[in-house]
C-alpha cells in the first residue's frame, strides 16, 4: 500500500470520487487552477476541467450558498473553506439553510454536500488560522461533523462523507496535514461515519480524542504505559454521528475518562461527552471525567504550545484520573 500524508489522502479520495461520480464537484477560493493553498485539490482542475474544479470569488457565504443550489439540482458539491476560521461568513447559509433544508421542506428537498476545511492550531497561525469550531456545527441539528486523524481515515471517511445523503462538515487536522503519514489502501476505500476507532485497548482509563489531538493522546497513552497506567484510547473520527456506544462500552469497563480537544473548554465538545458519560455510566464512574482542552481565550500566537492540550498535559490528567 502506498504511504501518503493527509493532504495526499484527501486528494486521492476526491479524485476517485470525481472519477466515479460525475456529479461530484469541488469549489472554493484558490481550489481550481492553483489546487488549493494546501494543495489538497491539486490536479483536479487539470483532470476534470473548470466546470468541476471551480475557483470562486472571495466569499464563503457565496461558496456555500451556491453549493446549496448545486446540491438541490443534483450535484454533489465539495466546497472548501480555506481555513476553518473563515467559515463564519458562511454561518447563516450553513446553520439556517444547509442544515435545515431537508427538514423545512418536509423531505421534498435535501442539500447534501461536504464542506472541507483545515482546522486547528500548532502551526504558528495565531487566532485566525488555528480555530477549532466544531462545537458550532455539532450543536446544529441537520449537520454531520467528521474529523480524521490519519491518512487512511482521511481517505475512507471523506469517501463516505461524499456518498452520505446528509451535509457533512469535514474538518482536516492541518497540524498533521503532512506530518501524519501512513499506508492508505489504493482504489475505492470507505470508512463508515459514526464508528469510533479503539486505537489502544486498556482497562484503567478511557482517553477520548480526535483529529490532531488524537496523536497527542496516543503519545500520552504510550508514556502513561511506561508509568504503568493502562489507557484505552478512542479516536472518535466522527463527532456527529457520535459513536456513543463505543464510549459507553469503554467507560463501563474503565470507570474513568479523559477527553481532549483544542477548542476552548467552555461548551466544547468535551462538555457534551462528559455529560453523556455521567448520564450513561453514572454508577460505574470512579473519577470525574476530565477535560484537557484549549483555554477559554482566543488561540495565541507565541504561546501556542502552552495553549494546546498536548501529550504532557494529557499525561498529567491521566495520572490525576487514575489516582482520584
Amino acid at each position: 500500500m502506498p504511504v501518503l500524508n493527509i493532504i495526499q489522502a484527501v486528494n486521492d479520495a476526491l479524485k476517485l470520487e470525481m472519477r466515479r461520480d460525475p456529479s461530484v464537484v469541488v469549489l472554493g477560493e484558490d481550489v481550481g487552477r492553483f489546487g488549493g493553498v494546501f494543495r489538497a485539490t491539486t490536479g483536479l482542475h487539470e483532470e476534470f476541467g473548470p466546470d468541476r474544479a471551480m475557483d470562486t470569488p472571495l466569499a464563503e457565504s457565496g461558496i456555500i450558498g451556491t453549493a446549496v443550489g448545486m446540491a438541490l439540482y443534483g450535484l454533489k458539491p465539495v466546497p472548501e473553506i480555506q481555513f476553518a476560521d473563515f467559515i463564519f461568513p458562511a454561518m447563516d447559509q450553513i446553520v439556517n439553510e444547509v442544515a435545515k433544508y431537508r427538514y423545512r421542506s418536509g423531505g421534498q428537498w435535501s442539500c447534501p454536500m461536504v464542506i472541507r476545511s483545515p482546522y486547528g492550531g500548532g502551526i504558528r497561525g495565531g487566532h485566525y488560522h488555528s480555530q477549532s469550531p466544531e462545537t458550532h456545527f455539532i450543536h446544529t441539528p441537520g449537520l454531520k461533523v467528521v474529523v480524521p486523524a490519519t491518512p487512511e481515515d482521511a481517505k475512507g471517511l471523506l469517501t463516505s462523507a461524499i456518498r452520505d445523503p446528509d451535509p457533512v462538515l469535514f474538518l482536516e487536522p492541518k497540524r498533521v496535514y503532512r506530518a501524519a503519514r501512513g499506508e492508505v489502501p489504493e482504489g475505492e476505500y470507505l470508512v463508515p461515519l459514526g464508528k469510533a476507532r479503539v486505537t489502544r485497548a486498556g482497562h484503567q482509563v478511557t482517553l477520548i480524542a480526535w483529529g490532531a489531538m488524537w496523536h497527542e493522546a496516543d503519545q500520552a497513552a504510550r508514556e502513561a504505559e511506561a508509568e504503568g497506567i493502562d489507557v484505552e484510547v478512542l479516536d472518535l473520527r466522527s463527532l456527529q454521528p457520535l459513536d456513543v456506544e463505543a464510549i459507553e462500552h469503554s467507560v463501563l469497563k474503565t470507570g474513568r475518562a479523559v477527553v481532549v480537544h483544542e477548542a476552548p473548554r467552555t461548551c466544547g465538545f468535551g462538555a457534551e461527552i462528559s455529560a453523556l458519560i455521567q448520564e450513561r455510566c453514572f454508577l460505574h464512574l470512579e473519577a470525574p471525567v476530565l477535560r484537557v482542552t484549549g483555554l477559554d481565550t482566543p488561540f495565541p500566537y507565541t504561546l501556542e504550545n502552552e495553549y494546546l492540550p498536548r501529550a504532557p498535559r494529557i499525561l498529567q490528567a491521566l495520572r490525576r484520573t487514575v489516582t482520584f
Partner: protein
Amino acid sequence: MRRTTEPRELRRRENGAAKEAAAPKAEAERYPLFRLLAEDGAGAPAESPLADGELLSLYRWMVLSRQLDERMVAMQRQGRIGFYIGAIGEEATVLGTAAGMQPGDWIFPCYREHAAALYRGMPMAALFCDMLGNAADLMLGHQMPCHEAWRPGHYASISSPIGTQIPQAVGAAWAARIKGEEMVSLVYFGEGATSSNDFHTGLNFAGVHKVPTVFVCRNNGWAISVPRERQTASETIAQKAVAYGIAGERVDGNDLLAVVAATRRARARAAAGEGPTLLECVTYRLEGHSTSDDPKAYRPVELVEPWRKKDPLTRLRRHLTERGLLAEAGDQKLLAEVKEEILAAIKQAEAADPKPPLETLIQGVYAEPMWQQREQLEEVRAAIALDPRVANPRHQS
C-alpha cells in the same frame, strides 16, 4: 453631541418618497422604467407580449392571488391560521415573472409568491395544509405558514432569513449548465434584501461565471418599516447590476405586460449564455408587511393612496375590458369561481388532522434519524404518556 447630524439629503429623499417623479438623475436615466400599458390601463399597449388566452388566464391568476391573500388575512384574524404574508399590490410582478419563464425553469421564492407556487401546479389544498401545519402538510408541520415548497413544480423551499435564496438560485442554474441542461433559474427578493450579504455574493458569483439566473427584485418600497430611501442610496435597484458587470433592467412592476416581456428578455439572454439579469420590478406593498404588522405606526396613508390608484388588477381589468376580452358579467363569474375554488380547498385542508404525528418531530433532520433523535422522540412520547399536558398548549394548572 449635535442634535441631528443625519444627512439632510437622507431626510429630504425620504420626505420626497411620496412624490413620484423626482428629477431623474444620471443612473435613473440609464435605467429607465420599462412600461407597456398606461398607468390607468387605458389605450393600446406599446406592445403586447401575450395572446388573448394567456392574458385572460394570467388575469385569473392575479385575481386568485388577491382573493387568496384577502381570505388568508381574514382566517388569520379568526385565529384559524397563525400567520400570513401576502402580495397585495404586487400581483403583476409575481405572476408576470412566473409566466415569463419556461416550465422546466426553477423558481426560488422569497415569501410572498404563493401564487407562483400555485401557478407551478401546487394544489391549493396543499398550500392551505402548509398554512395550517397540519397532518397533511407536505412540510410536516415543520415550518411557519407561507413557507411552502413544491418540488414537482421546481419551486424551492422558502426560508425566513432574508436573501439566502439568491446564491442558491445561482448554484442551481450553474449546476444545470455544468450538466449541460438548459435551465434558467429565477429568484425573488424584496428591495430590502438587496442590502443582504447574499444578494452581493449571489450576483457577484453569477456575474463572474455568467450563470443563467434572472434576479427579480420586487421593489415594493418598504422593508417592514424601512422605506427604500433608507435601504440604499442608489437611485434605482437596477443600477446595482453595474457592480457585477451584469445586465440590469427596471420595469413597471404593476404592468403585467411589461413584466412578462422583460422577464422573457432576461430569460432569453440567460439561456443564450449572455449572463444573468437584475430585474427591478417597481411596485408597492399596499398592506402591512404581514399579519404581524400594522403599518399605521410608521407609514402615512398619504404615501399609499397614489399607489392604490395604480392597482395592477384594476389596470389589467381595464385593459382587458377595452380589448374586449372581459365584460362585467364575466369578471363577476370569474371572481365567484375563484372564491369557490379557494373555499373548497380550505375545506379540504381543514378536514385533515390539525396535528402531524409525533414522529414528524424527528423526520427530515437527517436522511435517517440518529440515536439522539430516536431517543429524544421516545422521551417525549413517554413523557406524554405519563402526563398529557406535555403535548398541550396550556399546561398551567
